[in-house]
C-alpha cells in the first residue's frame, strides 16, 4: 500500500548504506587481519590495498548515512521514527544536531563517524602498525554497524535502525484517528494528520547539547587507538608500539577529559542539578576510563624511559577501552534506571551491548595472559629515588581509584546478576568523596614531587635543593587559604575537614611545584613543558573542586518572610535533613535574603526560544552593587506538563552567584473582591481573614513618604502593622493627600503576600478620632516564584584548570609527534 506524502527513498538509501557498511567493515577487518599476519611478505601490500578500499567504502557509507539522517531531521520527515521521536518543527536550527545525537542510533552514528576520521589518520601515519591497529578499528566499526542494522534474523532483532518508519513500529495502533474507519488499517493520508514530532527533551535544548556529545564521543572513540596498538603489539609480539601510541593516548585523554568536564559545565550552567558533579553513574562511567587511561599514559612513559611497567601499560590500555564499552552498556541498557537522574530505557539490545563488551575483552585478555611471560619486564627493582617508581605508584592509585568508583557504580548490575536489592547510600556523594579526597591528596603530592626526580636515580642533594622553594611557597599559599579562606565544612566531622585542608595543600603544591619545574627543571623550555602544564591544570582543577565544594553556600536560606511559617510548623530543625533552600518571591516585592534584597521584577516570554525569562534584581544591602539575573524556564513539550528550569549566574572572578527557579505561579484569576469599611481609632485592632491589623499612629506629611505626595498637598498617613496568623509582620501605610478643600487622592497600600489592600477612606468622627479604613482581601494571589540561590566560590579555578590541562596535553601531543619524526627516544 502506498501512503500519501511519504519520502521513502532517503530511508531506503540509508538502510542500504547501513548494510553495505556492515559488509565493507567486515571485509576491511579480514583484509587487515590477513595483512597483519603477512609481515614482510609481498602479498601484504595487496591485502592492505583491499582493506583500504573496503574502509573507504565503509567511511563513505557512514558519512552519507550521517548526512541522510540530518536531512530527514532538518526536513521534518515525521514518517521516520527517529525524526518523529526526537524532533519537532518549533526547534531552532542549531538544535537539529542535538536531536541527531539525542537517541542511541544517532550517538552510535557519531561514534562510528569519529572512528572513520581516526582510521584515516592512522592509515596515513601508522605505517608498519596500520594493519594490526586497523584490524581492531575495522572490527569495532563492524560491531557498531550491527547496532545500527535494525533487521530481524530468525526473530532476533539485531540493532536499531535509524531509518525505521514510524508506522512500522506500531505507533499508530493506539490512535484511532489514523485508522480508516471501514478497514481499520492505517489511513493512506495519515501523514497529513501527523502535524508534528514529539520534540527534543527540553532539558536538552541547550547549546551544550550541540557541542558536548561530539567532543565526548571523540574522546570515547579515540580510546580505541591505544587499545588497538596494544592489541596489535600482542599479536605481533612487538612492543615498539608504545612509542606511536603515546601521543594518541595523550590526545584521547585530553579530548575525553574535556568532554567529561564539558558535561560538568553543562550540568552546572544549564541544568538545575545545583552543581557540576554529583557522582551520578553516568558521570562516573565516563570518568573512570579517563582515570585508567591517564594511568596508562604514565606507565607507558615509564616504559619508554626506563623499561619498567610494560605489562601494566598493556593492562591499563586494554582496561580503558573495555571500560568505555562497559560504560556504553551501563548507560544504554537502562540498567541504571533507578540510580541515575539520566533516564535511559531498555531498548531490547542488552544482549548485543554485553556482546560488544565481551568481543573486545575476551580476545584481548586471552592474548594478554597468553603472552604475559614473553612481555619483557626488568627483574631488578626501581630505586626509591627514581622517577619511574613514583609515577608507577601514582598510576596505580589512579587505576585503583577508577576501579573503586566503577565497582560502586555497578551495584545495579550486581543486583541484576545476584538478585540482591542494594541501593545507594543515604549520602551517595559523600560516600565517594570520603574516599576520593585521599586519592586527591596522594595524587596531588605525587604530581608535585615526581618531576623533580630523575629517571633511574636522583642525587638526594639535587632533589632536596630543587624541591625546597616550591614546597615552601606551597605551604605558605595553602596555609593562607586554610587560615583566611574560612574553609569550615564541618558537616562530616573534623576528620573530613582535616582531609579537605590536606587535599588543598596537596593541590596547591601540585600547581606550584609543576609551574616552578618549568624554570627549575626545564630551564624555561616551554616546548618541553607539556607534562608540567597539564599537571598545573590538574592541580588547579583539584583546587577549584575542593574550594567550591567545601565552601558552596546557600544564599536563599528561607529566614525571612514566608519562612517563619516553616519554623513554626516544623521546629527549627528540618527533619528530612534537607535544607529549606527555596525562597519565595512575590512580584515586585523586595525580599530580604542575607546580603541582598532581591526583587522579582517581571517576566517575559521569548517566542523565539519559547523560554520565559524572569528578571531577578539583586541589591546588596551595603549599597555597593546592584545586578539583575535572568534565569528562565522552558515549558515541557508535548506529553509533559510543567517546565524545566535553566539557571543564571552572576560571575565574579572569585565566585559565582547561581540562581534557578524551582516553581512559579501566575495570577490568572480575576480580582472580584471589594473594599469593606471599618472604623478604628489609634491603638485599635481590626481583623481580616488571615490575621489582624493594628493601627499604630497617624502621621501628617511624613518625610519618609515624600515621594507619594506633592508639595502643595497635605498628606495624612496611617502607620499600621499587619500580623498574620502565623506570626509574620508587615508594615503598611495607607494615606490620603488633600489639595485645597475638595481635591482628595487616596493612597492605598498593599501586602502582596497576603493579597491585602488597605486604604484610608476618611476621618469618620473628628471629635473622638475615629477613622474609616477600607480593607480588601483579594481572592487572587499575585505572581510568585520560588527560587534557589547558591554561591560557588572559586569555581572559575576549576574551569581554568580544565583549559590549562587540555593545553598541556596538546603541547605534549605536539612534542611527541615531533620526536616521533626525529626518531629520538627520550621526551621527558
Amino acid at each position, binding site marked *: 500500500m502506498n501512503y500519501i506524502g511519504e519520502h521513502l527513498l532517503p530511508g531506503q538509501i540509508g538502510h542500504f548504506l547501513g548494510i553495505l557498511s556492515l559488509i565493507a567493515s567486515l571485509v576491511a577487518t579480514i583484509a587487515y587481519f590477513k595483512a597483519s599476519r603477512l609481515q614482510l611478505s609481498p602479498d601484504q601490500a595487496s591485502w592492505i590495498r583491499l582493506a583500504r578500499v573496503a574502509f573507504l567504502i565503509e567511511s563513505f557509507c557512514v558519512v552519507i548515512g550521517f548526512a541522510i539522517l540530518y536531512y530527514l531531521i532538518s526536513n521534518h520527515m515525521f514518517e521516520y521514527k527517529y525524526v518523529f*521521536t526526537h524532533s519537532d518543527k518549533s526547534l531552532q536550527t542549531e538544535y537539529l544536531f542535538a536531536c541527531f545525537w*539525542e537517541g542511541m542510533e544517532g550517538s552510535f552514528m557519531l561514534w562510528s563517524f569519529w572512528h572513520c576520521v581516526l582510521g584515516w589518520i592512522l592509515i596515513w601515519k601508522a605505517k608498519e602498525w596500520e594493519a594490526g591497529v586497523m584490524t581492531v578499528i575495522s572490527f569495532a566499526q563492524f560491531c557498531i554497524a550491527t547496532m545500527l542494522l535494525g533487521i530481524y534474523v530468525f526473530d532476533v532483532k539485531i540493532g536499531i535502525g535509524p531509518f525505521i518508519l514510524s508506522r512500522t*513500529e*506500531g*505507533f*499508530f495502533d*493506539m*490512535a484511532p*484517528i489514523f485508522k480508516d474507519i471501514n478497514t481499520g488499517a492505517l489511513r493512506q493520508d495519515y501523514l497529513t494528520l*501527523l*502535524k*508534528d514530532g*514529539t520534540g527534543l*527533551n527540553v*532539558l536538552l535544548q541547550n547549546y551544550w547539547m550541540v557541542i558536548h556529545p561530539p567532543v565526548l564521543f571523540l574522546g570515547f572513540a579515540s580510546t580505541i587507538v591505544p587499545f588497538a596498538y596494544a592489541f596489535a603489539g600482542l599479536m605481533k609480539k612487538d612492543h615498539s608500539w608504545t612509542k606511536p601510541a603515546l601521543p594518541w593516548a595523550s590526545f584521547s585523554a585530553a579530548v575525553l577529559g574535556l568532554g567529561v568536564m564539558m558535561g560538568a559545565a553543562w550540568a552546572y550552567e544549564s541544568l538545575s542539578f545545583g552543581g557540576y558533579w554529583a557522582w551520578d553513574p553516568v558521570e562516573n562511567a565516563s570518568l573512570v576510563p579517563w582515570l585508567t587511561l591517564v594511568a596508562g599514559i604514565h606507565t607507558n612513559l615509564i616504559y619508554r624511559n626506563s623499561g619498567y611497567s610494560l605489562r601494566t601499560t598493556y593492562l591499563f590500555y586494554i582496561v580503558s577501552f573495555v571500560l568505555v564499552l562497559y560504560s556504553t552498556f551501563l548507560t544504554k541498557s537502562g540498567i541504571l*534506571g*533507578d540510580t541515575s*537522574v539520566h*533516564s535511559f*530505557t531498555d531498548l531490547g539490545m542488552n544482549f548485543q551491548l554485553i556482546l560488544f563488551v565481551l568481543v573486545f575483552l575476551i580476545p584481548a585478555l586471552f592474548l594478554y595472559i597468553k603472552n604475559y611471560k614473553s612481555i619483557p619486564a626488568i627483574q631488578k*627493582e*626501581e630505586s626509591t629515588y627514581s622517577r619511574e617508581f613514583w609515577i608507577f*605508584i601514582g598510576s*596505580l*592509585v589512579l587505576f*585503583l581509584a577508577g576501579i573503586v568508583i566503577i565497582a*560502586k557504580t555497578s551495584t545495579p548490575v550486581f543486583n541484576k546478576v545476584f538478585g540482591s*536489592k*542494594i*541501593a*545507594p*547510600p*543515604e549520602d551517595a556523594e559523600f*560516600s565517594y568523596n570520603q574516599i576520593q579526597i585521599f586519592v586527591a591528596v596522594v595524587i596531588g603530592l605525587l604530581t608535585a614531587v615526581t618531576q623533580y626526580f630523575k629517571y633511574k636515580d636522583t642525587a638526594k642533594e639535587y632533589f632536596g635543593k630543587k624541591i625546597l622553594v616550591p614546597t615552601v611557597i606551597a605551604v605558605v599559599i595553602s596555609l593562607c587559604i586554610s587560615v583566611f579562606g574560612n574553609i569550615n565544612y564541618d558537616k562530616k566531622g573534623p576528620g573530613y575537614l582535616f582531609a579537605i585542608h590536606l587535599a588543598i595543600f596537596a593541590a596547591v603544591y601540585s600547581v606550584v611545584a609543576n609551574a616552578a619545574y618549568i624554570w627549575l627543571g626545564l630551564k624555561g623550555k616551554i616546548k618541553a613543558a607539556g607534562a608540567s602544564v597539564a599537571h598545573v591544570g590538574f592541580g588547579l582543577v583539584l583546587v577549584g573542586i575542593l574550594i567550591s565544594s567545601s565552601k558552596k553556600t546557600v544564599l536563599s536560606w*528561607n529566614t525571612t518572610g*514566608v519562612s517563619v511559617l*516553616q519554623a513554626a*510548623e*516544623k521546629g527549627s530543625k*528540618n*527533619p*528530612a535533613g*534537607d535544607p*529549606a*533552600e*527555596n*525562597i*519565595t518571591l512575590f512580584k515586585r516585592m523586595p525580599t530580604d535574603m542575607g546580603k541582598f534584597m532581591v526583587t522579582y521584577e517581571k517576566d517575559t516570554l521569548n517566542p523565539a526560544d519559547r523560554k520565559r525569562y524572569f528578571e531577578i534584581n539583586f541589591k546588596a544591602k551595603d549599597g555597593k552593587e546592584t545586578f539583575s539575573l535572568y534565569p528562565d524556564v522552558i515549558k*515541557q*513539550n*508535548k*506529553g*509533559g506538563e*510543567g517546565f524545566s*528550569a535553566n539557571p543564571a549566574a552572576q560571575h565574579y572572578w572569585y565566585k559565582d552567584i547561581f540562581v534557578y527557579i*524551582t*516553581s512559579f*505561579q501566575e495570577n490568572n484569576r480575576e480580582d472580584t473582591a471589594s473594599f469593606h469599611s471599618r472604623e478604628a481609632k489609634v491603638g485599635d485592632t481590626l481583623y481580616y481573614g488571615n490575621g489582624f491589623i493594628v493601627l499604630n499612629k497617624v502621621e501628617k506629611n511624613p518625610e519618609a513618604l515624600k515621594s507619594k505626595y506633592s508639595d502643595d498637598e497635605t498628606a495624612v498617613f496611617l502607620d499600621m502593622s499587619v500580623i498574620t496568623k502565623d506570626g509574620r509582620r508587615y508594615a503598611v501605610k495607607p494615606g490620603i493627600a488633600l489639595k485645597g478643600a475638595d481635591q482628595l487622592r487616596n493612597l492605598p497600600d498593599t501586602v502582596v503576600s497576603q493579597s491585602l489592600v488597605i486604604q484610608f477612606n476618611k476621618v469618620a468622627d473628628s471629635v473622638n478620632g475615629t477613622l474609616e479604613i477600607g480593607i480588601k482581601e483579594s481572592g487572587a*494571589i499575585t505572581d*510568585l516564584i520560588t527560587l534557589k540561590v547558591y554561591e560557588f566560590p572559586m569555581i572559575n579555578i576549576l574551569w581554568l584548570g580544565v583549559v590549562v590541562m587540555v593545553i598541556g596535553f596538546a603541547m605534549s601531543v605536539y612534542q611527541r609527534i615531533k620526536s616521533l619524526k626525529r626518531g629520538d627516544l627520550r621526551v621527558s
Partner: protein
Amino acid sequence: MKKTHIILLVCIAAAIVVLISYTGDLTTYETIASARQKEGKFVNLIVKMDKGQPLEYDAVKNPNYMSFTAVDSLGNNIKVVYHNNKPTDMEKSERLVLKGRVQGDHFECKDILLKCPSKYKDDPKAAQKNLQQSTS
C-alpha cells in the same frame, strides 16, 4: 619481597577495605510494608503517586513542604512528606524512586528521582501517548 610488590599489596588491601566500608553505607530497595517494619532506617522505595489522593503543595504558604500519598506495586500506601519544592512534572511521572525513612505514620523523603514518560523518548507507549497531542 620486592618493594613494588609490597606497595601493590598495600594498595589492593586499601581498595578492599574501601569497598568493604561501602557496604556499611549501602541501603536497600524496600516495599512500603517492609520499610514500615524498618522504621527510622534509610531506605529506597519504588512507588507511584496515588492520584486519587490530594497532593499538597502551596508555595505561598511554604515552598519547602510537599506531601502526597505513594502506592507501591503491592498496593500498600503511605503518606510522603518532602521538605523541598515540588519536582517538575511529578504528576506525570510513571514511577518515583523515593529516598528517605519511615517516621511514625509517614515517609520522610529526602530525595525523589522521577522517571518521566517524556524522558522515555524511545518508549513506544510514551510515544503513542504523545501522538494525541501531535495531531491537535
